[in-house]
């Protein structure tokens, strides 16, 4: 069990919220400013957001979630790892990505000038906003990026039925 599992404010991480718009340079700039302001004034001291955790020196992969009408795609930046170092699982509508980024073997006469990369165990949980086809989930590791594709469920009772509105 990771220590982060014990923290009560972990749930905040799970919420899916629109965070970035790329269509317009000014909107992007405004979003960046918003994010900076949020970080300065609204960030709780022990927030579990990646940037805060990275400052404490632990590896915490950044995650993007995108979707179209057929599938949800979760990507995570996990450079310098191997597909065997990452474990992906799905239960009760929650996608879990966990693993460990190992530091290089320490050699005797190494003198470090700069250490910015972070190492250690990590665990991310992403709650899906809709039901997905569990048996068709695929995960791929390529060029330091993990991509998990979760096809949305097509069962009629999940998709819902559109009810026409009649004129009374």
């Amino acid at each position, binding site marked *: 069990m990771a220590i982060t599992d014990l923290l009560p404010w972990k749930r905040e991480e799970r919420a899916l919220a629109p965070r970035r718009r790329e269509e317009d340079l000014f909107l992007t700039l405004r979003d960046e400013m918003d994010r900076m302001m949020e970080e300065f004034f609204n960030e709780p001291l022990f927030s579990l957001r990646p940037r805060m955790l990275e400052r404490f020196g632990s590896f915490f992969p950044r995650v993007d979630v995108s979707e179209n009408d057929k599938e949800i795609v979760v990507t995570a930046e*996990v450079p310098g790892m191997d597909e065997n170092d990452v*474990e992906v699982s799905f239960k009760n509508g929650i996608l879990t990505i966990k693993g460990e980024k190992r530091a290089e073997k320490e050699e005797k006469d190494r003198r470090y*000038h700069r250490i910015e990369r972070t190492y250690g165990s990590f665990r991310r949980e992403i709650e899906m906003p809709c039901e997905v086809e*569990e048996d068709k989930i695929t*995960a791929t*590791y390529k*060029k330091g*990026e993990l991509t998990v594709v979760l096809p949305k469920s097509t069962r009629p009772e999940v998709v819902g039925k559109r009810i026409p509105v009649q004129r009374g």
Partner: protein
Amino acid sequence: MAEETKSIEIKKETPLAEEKTERIRERRVYLPRTDIYETRDDLVLVMDLPGADEKSVDIMLEKNVLTIKAYPTFERPENYTLAYAEYGEGDFERSFALSDEIDREHIEARVKNGTLYLRLPKAGAAKPTKIEVKAG
């Protein structure tokens, strides 16, 4: 909904060769996280460049300034909308001033799993030499 946790097997994909295109793009540029260490003979630089491979990294050593640029490519589903974002897509660029003389003929660079490993051997003059002290 199944009660037991399903483990999803991760497939490893080897990136396909991409066509060379002109590398001038209006994208954001990020500073990649880098470790630099020195051994007796080499200066070693390890840089995280997620999304980049050996074809999308440019390394330039001009005088004593080392510049590394990377142009990662990300495959995304068609007609997708971004629901939640923690990392921005863009290029990587970073420069370092090297204090030691480098043996330019024997620089080695490899990219593995989105991480660049660059070994810069010190030139003869920059290598430390131990001076033997004789009894007088």
